[in-house]
């Protein structure tokens, strides 16, 4: 027998043993019989928001309520598309995304169940669907991040439409697969029309726009000078400032002028899914997310705007009421599929 032939003989059983021992872990995610997801009673969440943020949130939920949660992370649009493809077969109970448009698209596909009692009225009407199928959890504003070393404050564009100017060639950063960016594009389509939006996107491509996977990467690229201007959400800046101190940050934020699609105020929101086989658990999670103490957690941890009355917004950021995005209702953003098709057509995704 060759020495090298003996090794696999020893290792294969060892691997099988290890797999058997790890069975506990594996089967908590996928029952031993191979059927879909979830240990008993776990709420299956499809999260279009990042693991960094959602994982501690849901750990807190489980600690407080004892209800286990399993999460599938992805992009906001990706998981909405996946839910639509999955249809009734979906293992998911709750969808948590960062774009009202994705929620609108799910609603249009008949996948959002009616909100549980008490949830529907928890936030102002403009931050939830008209037919009580989805609700906003937190608010966020689109901003222009800029590198003051490359662009003095006075020269920062006040409208996103200036970004296709050749003087910004190669200097602008966007995250086209990110739900917040897509919602902003939908808002531009609704307020300015498809042709204008398509021309603008094509103008960005022709202007050598830099594309990133995440808003946080854009923020860091602008901070280090890799890009001069970037389209992100307000809270990415505040999170980093809380972490390393505002004085240590180079990147700064500017708000686009009132009415500009670049000043869109959107929500991160959620809905209970109609194919859910654990609607009670999902409803409990949704109710918990709108509890004032959880809303305060969002304020302290994510620097987003709370949507529930009586919870104070993070200090040092402009009040939500002062922000003036394009004059459209969030429910109008539901044509996310159209936005995705446009982005794909142009070659940004």
């Amino acid at each position: 027998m060759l020495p090298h032939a003996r090794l696999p003989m020893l290792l294969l059983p060892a691997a099988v043993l290890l797999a058997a021992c790890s069975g506990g872990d594996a089967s908590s995610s996928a029952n031993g019989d191979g059927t879909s997801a979830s240990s008993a009673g776990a709420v299956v969440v499809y999260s279009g928001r990042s693991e960094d943020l959602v994982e501690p949130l849901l750990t807190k939920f489980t600690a407080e309520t004892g209800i286990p949660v399993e999460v599938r992370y992805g992009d906001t649009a990706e998981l909405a598309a996946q839910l639509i493809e999955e249809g009734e077969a979906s293992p998911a109970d709750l969808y948590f995304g960062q774009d009202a448009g994705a929620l609108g698209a799910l609603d249009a596909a008949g996948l959002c169940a009616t909100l549980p009692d008490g949830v529907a009225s928890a936030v102002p009407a403009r931050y939830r669907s008209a037919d009580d199928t989805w609700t906003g959890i937190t608010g966020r504003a689109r901003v222009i991040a800029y590198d003051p070393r490359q662009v003095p404050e006075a020269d920062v564009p006040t409208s996103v439409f200036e970004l296709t100017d050749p003087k910004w060639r190669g200097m602008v950063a966007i995250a086209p697969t990110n739900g917040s960016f897509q919602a902003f594009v939908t808002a531009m389509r609704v307020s300015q029309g498809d042709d204008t939006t398509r021309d603008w996107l094509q103008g960005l491509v022709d202007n050598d726009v830099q594309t990133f996977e995440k808003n946080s990467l854009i923020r860091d690229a602008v901070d280090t000078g890799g890009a001069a201007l970037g389209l992100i959400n307000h809270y990415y800046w505040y999170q980093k400032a809380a972490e390393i101190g505002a004085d240590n940050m180079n990147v700064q934020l500017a708000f686009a002028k009132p009415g500009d699609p670049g000043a869109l105020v959107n929500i991160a929101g959620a809905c209970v899914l109609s194919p859910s086989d654990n609607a009670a658990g999902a409803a409990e999670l949704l109710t918990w997310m709108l509890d004032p103490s959880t809303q305060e957690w969002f304020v302290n941890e994510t620097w987003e705007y709370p949507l529930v009355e009586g919870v104070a917004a993070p200090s040092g950021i402009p009040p939500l009421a002062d922000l003036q995005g394009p004059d459209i209702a969030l429910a109008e953003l539901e044509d996310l599929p159209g936005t995705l098709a446009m982005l794909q057509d142009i070659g940004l995704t």
Partner: protein
Amino acid sequence: MGTSTSRRPPLPLLAAAVAAVVVMALPLVYLVIRVVDSGESAWSALWRPRTAETIATSLLLVVLVAVGVLILAVPTAWLLSRTDLPFRRVLIVLVALPLAVPSYVAAYAWIALLPGMSGVLAAALVMSLSTFPYVSIPLMAALRGLDPGLEESARSLGLGRAAVARRVVLPLMWPAAGAGLLLAALYTLAEFGTVSIFRVDAFTRVIYASYRASFDRTAAAVLAVLLVLLALALVAAEARVRGRASRWRTGSGAPRPAAPIHVRGRVRAAGLVWMSCVIGLSLALPVASIIGQLVLSRRRAFDPEAFLGALAGSVSASTLGAAVALILAIPLGVLAARYTGRLVRSLEAGAFAGHGLPGVVIGLALVFLTLMLLPAAYQTLATLAFAYAVLFAPKAVGATRAAVGAAPPELESVARSLGRGPLGAWWQTTGRLAWPGIAAGGLLVLLTAMKELPATLMLRPTGFETLATRLWSRTEVEAFGAAAPYALALIVLAALPAWLMSRWLGSPGSSGRRSQAPRTLDRGDAAADGAWKGAAMHQVKAGPS
């Protein structure tokens, strides 16, 4: 030819092999059906400018990697096989080790060091550095086996050194280099992690992006089918080139090993500097970067519970995948080793055609397939294991074929003549001799599957993590410190198949297998030997990710 090869294969074995090929082909067939079914929208997706751009980007990347691989591999192979450069033995081992660094792990290591790195050149650099052993290892073997008499004759007939290299050495080296280049090219086409980390819009990244960012997944399916066609075209092109390039000795006389060229002074120094650069960039730099990340961020980043969960996830999914792969591979391997004939050859070819199939394609196909036909299997460990089996069973087919082929068929005939039934005879003779080799094939599938990324991302159950998906999600948010333990674990796991390959491929004339099984090679079946080496080669590198 042995007597057994003239027999017709028994029907149950044939049926099992046919079933295995059908099962392995199922995802791809379904993908094609889905594309054809979607008619008009598939057509419009095909004629989008984006499609042509993607093809161009992928081809550019393949060409750049091929050039990079040749630049790295040719001088390296020459220095290590034809000169008396010092430390050759150590160097030969070191230049095979980049195979142990999955290229997306290397990409992570580079970008952790240079966060601004991106683009097609960056991707080509990293992929060349991690795939050049595909060419340098067989090239070293071929250069060592080259009869210096040929070169001497050419010189004596009046050719200059350059002309000898061009007209004698190069044509003789091409088959070895060409097969290695093909592997590197297929790896490049199928690789997902590296192109995504460097933001290169090659096929795999575009397929995954359009799968994620669209409510209509037809475009992703169309691109996936195109990618498979492109890979098949590459295989066909290489086969054509190689078909014209067959060389052999005629007449009597024994080849002798070439006398090593003495290098000293500046040439020797230059040779050592070259080797240091190659090893430094392909091996030392990624490993140092990962260890650096680990040390820098030890305090905040390491989460042992998450790490063990991911390890358990990797082990359980890959073990299941390896088991399924063996079930598919054993009938095919036995059939290919023991029987000939058109049907057998085409079944074997069918199984090998799955080689280097991109994970993103199988992932996509199985998402469609399970949702349409078998929703209960969607996002289950079983489906993920099946994907691993489809992707990596060809490796196990090669190993089974080699192991069974090395067991003398006469023993089985003797056992039959002594009254054993067909299965009993097989198990007590061939089975006993071959099973370590078959198990090694299963282990290689297991270790390769542990590194699989795109199909895992698409098919895993909710909440299920593997080492690869953890590395991926940490890298995506540029949490490089938190990614480091996963990167290191993946390299350690990959080191084993790399080590096995260096044993199998290192010394072509004197492999252990040959001394174990003189009978097979008594048949003078050089092709079988070559196929085995090809299979061993395939087994090594982590399938692309």
